[in-house]
């Protein structure tokens, strides 16, 4: 059975909780005022109030708890709040609280002579406003301090903190027993929490993450917090001294411990930030190095191009080592050199290059270059002092991918021995990271290119398939069956038919030389030629002659197409055909159960690109009877080889066709393919296989 859990949190949204706690805090504060004033009224009139001192204490406790709860929810929920925002929050809360107190102070000052101030009820009422304001400030600051202290927390720290926090809240109960306890208990508890606060106050890791500017702002804000605290406490003290208060907030362990803790933490933070100020630039430097490193390594993912990587490398390198000028030269494949500059002119680059060639770096780099960077470079040998008035020292780092140098980074400084070991190390890691990025970039674009090529092949295959007829003729006169299977690559086999008129049907089979996209392209040209010429009702010889001259204009010099053209006349029951260099068709004679190849003269299309073509072509005609079969195929069938290198050949083909010639065209195809595959002894094709079989009725 699924358990139904309805927690308080799921019932009320976070926003609802916030509002609810605020509402309760206000309600209990109002209750506190009413009960306190009621008590006071009774006291003044010497009457029995009917409620004890504990009632307002209870309201105070609940008020504090709800305020505390409210700020815990508000300040702790956002994980991303930055430290300055947190301190700003404390500052602004403090500002509002001080304004409230100032307003009350001003009010008291203006009315110092009036009777109102002699009225304890009025004084206590204003004091309660003070109480609320100070509690708000103390608790919200406490929650902010908690976030700061628990930044990068561990289990032990968390445990100490929880002890401290719950202990503090527990002291609220102390009020109930105030009268029964001695002063030393009060002092003792105060001492314990003071110590606790002191120990916790040394968790200041957040300070390290502030930059120089943020540190100054933090000091200012923290100093203001100290100022607020001083003002609030003196205010409380003054009230306590001057007036008869029904509920004095000052002798309260909770309030005093909290104030002490806030004061200590603010003070220690100020001091620590002050001492950290001089080293903050180092920290900032390290952070920027890490960020630059990240930029270099991520630049590929973001789809940046190589130039952006180079720019990031140059920029981060100059920043990392505070170099005055720098340049990055990249050697392109076409022997050109591209130069990325930073604060330097071309003329100056040439000048500095000369001085580098005179330094000991040049022979050292040259030696490694001749060894194809097989050995690791000694980074310390890449820096040298130059004989140059502007740039007395330089650091030169080659960009090496595998064993080839793709570029050179030159950093220049206006002091001698300007590059220490740390700087050399960081530049070396920048350069190697940039090289990795560039290498990845190259690999990626290569992979993309391959992918594109594969995609193109797929398209070519699709185009080729779509060029073949989807439906074939199957009527009273004859039935057609076609089979096409291609190797992985795109082949150039082609067959098609066209019903010239009611009685005449033209059939073509062809093979384009070559493979791949160019074959598919030529094949589509062949289809275009076929469909435009076939409508002219030409005899086979004229058809091929015209096709030859048409294709002569579009085929490459070494390309040619073999084709055979058949015109079936279903009234005369004849097949007229010509062969343009295509493998001769097989004819199965049903009566005689015999087969023979159509041997006649012919020449491939595109071989002779002149009007002479006609004379190389024969036209033949045969008559057919019911049951006869015309078997068309491409050279993939006869040229298929077995593992010994022997070809399937014409004889094996005619044997199979003559054996199964009386079967249906589909059956004949099955038998041919079966014996072909058993002959080549493998499932892998290395050419296209095309078979078209026409069975006459």
């Amino acid at each position, binding site marked *: 059975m699924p358990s139904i859990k309805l927690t308080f949190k799921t019932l009320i949204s976070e926003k609802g909780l916030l509002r609810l706690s605020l509402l309760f805090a206000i309600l209990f504060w109002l209750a506190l005022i009413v009960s306190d004033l009621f008590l006071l009224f009774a006291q003044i009139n010497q009457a029995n109030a009917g409620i004890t001192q504990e009632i307002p204490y209870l309201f105070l406790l609940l008020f504090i708890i709800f305020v505390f709860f409210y700020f815990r929810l508000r300040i702790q929920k956002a994980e991303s709040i930055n430290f300055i925002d947190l301190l700003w929050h404390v500052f602004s809360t403090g500002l509002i609280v001080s304004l409230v107190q100032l307003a009350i102070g001003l009010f008291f000052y203006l009315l110092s002579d009036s009777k109102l101030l002699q009225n304890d009820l009025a004084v206590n009422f204003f004091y309660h406003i003070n109480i609320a304001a100070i509690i708000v400030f103390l608790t919200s600051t406490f929650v902010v301090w908690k976030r700061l202290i628990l930044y990068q927390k561990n289990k032990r720290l968390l445990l100490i903190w929880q002890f401290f926090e719950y202990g503090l809240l527990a002291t609220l109960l102390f009020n109930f027993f105030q009268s029964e306890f001695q002063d030393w208990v009060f002092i003792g508890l105060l001492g314990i929490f003071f110590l606790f606060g002191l120990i916790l106050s040394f968790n200041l890791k957040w300070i390290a993450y502030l930059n120089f500017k943020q540190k100054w702002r933090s000091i200012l804000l923290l100093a203001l917090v100290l100022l607020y605290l001083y003002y609030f406490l003196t205010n409380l003290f003054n009230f306590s001294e001057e007036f008869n208060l029904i509920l004095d907030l000052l002798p309260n362990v909770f309030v005093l411990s909290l104030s002490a803790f806030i004061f200590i933490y603010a003070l220690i933070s100020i001091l620590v930030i002050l001492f950290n100020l001089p080293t903050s630039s180092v920290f900032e430097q390290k952070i920027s190095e890490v960020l630059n490193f990240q930029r270099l390594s991520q630049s590929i993912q973001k789809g940046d191009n190589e130039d952006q990587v180079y720019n990031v490398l140059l920029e981060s390198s100059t920043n990392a080592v505070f170099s005055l000028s720098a340049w990055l030269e990249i050697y392109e494949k076409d022997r050109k050199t591209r130069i990325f500059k930073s604060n330097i002119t071309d003329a100056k680059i040439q000048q500095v290059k000369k001085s580098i060639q005179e330094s000991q770096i040049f022979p050292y780099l040259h030696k490694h270059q001749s060894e194809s960077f097989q050995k690791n470079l000694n980074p310390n040998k890449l820096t040298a002092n130059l004989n140059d008035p502007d740039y007395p020292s330089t650091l030169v780092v080659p960009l090496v991918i595998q064993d080839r140098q793709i570029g050179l980074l030159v950093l220049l400084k206006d002091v001698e021995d300007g590059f220490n070991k740390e700087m050399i190390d960081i530049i070396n890691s920048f350069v190697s990271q940039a090289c990795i990025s560039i290498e990845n970039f190259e690999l990626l674009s290569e992979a993309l290119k391959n992918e594109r090529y594969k995609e193109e092949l797929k398209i070519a295959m699709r185009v080729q398939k779509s060029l073949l007829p989807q439906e074939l003729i199957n009527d009273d006169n004859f039935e057609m069956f076609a089979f096409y299977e291609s190797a992985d690559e795109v082949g150039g086999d082609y067959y098609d038919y066209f019903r010239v008129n009611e009685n005449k049907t033209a059939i073509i089979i062809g*093979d384009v*030389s*070559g*493979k791949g996209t160019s074959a598919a392209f030529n094949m589509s040209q062949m289809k275009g030629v076929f469909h435009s010429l076939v409508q002219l009702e030409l005899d086979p010889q004229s058809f091929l002659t015209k096709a030859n001259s048409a294709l002569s204009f579009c085929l490459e*010099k*070494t*390309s*040619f197409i*073999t084709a055979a053209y058949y015109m079936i006349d279903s009234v005369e029951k004849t097949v007229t055909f010509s062969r*343009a*260099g*295509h*493998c*001769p068709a097989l004819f199965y004679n049903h009566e005689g159960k015999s087969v023979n190849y159509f041997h006649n*003269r*012919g*020449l*491939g299309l595109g*071989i*002779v690109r002149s009007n002479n073509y006609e004379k*190389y072509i024969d036209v033949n005609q045969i008559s057919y009877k019911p049951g006869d079969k015309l078997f068309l195929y491409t*050279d993939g069938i006869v*040229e298929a080889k077995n593992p010994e290198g022997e*070809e399937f050949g014409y004889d094996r083909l005619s044997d199979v066709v003559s054996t199964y010639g009386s079967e249906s065209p589909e059956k004949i195809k099955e038998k041919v393919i079966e014996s072909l595959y058993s002959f080549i002894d493998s499932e892998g094709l290395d050419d296209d296989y095309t078979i078209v079989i026409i069975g006459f009725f």
Partner: protein
Amino acid sequence: MINIEITKEDEISIITVAGDVDASSSIHLDEALTKLVKESSVKLIMIDGTQLDYISSAGLGVFMSYIDDFKTNNIKMVLFGLSKKVQNVFEILGLDQLLNIVADKKEAKEKLYEIQS
């Protein structure tokens, strides 16, 4: 596998082609023929196909592409010694109508002088 050798007998250049001529190896045949066409002194070429085992359509394409070059440079070429199978490949495409194909070397020489005059 392909093995191509060019020899000279008097004024006749002889290319001996041995092995298989397929799409990849036909490049070597092409190179050999280009080399001869570039030499202006070469006017008579004999192709010895006695040891030619196989020729693919790409190989035929090489011969085909030189027909025009030979004509313009007045170069005469004769093939001889083709096996029945190889000769069949030439015949099916119809190249036997355009090229001079004879049985043996002796006939080839006679044919060369015959067509030269």
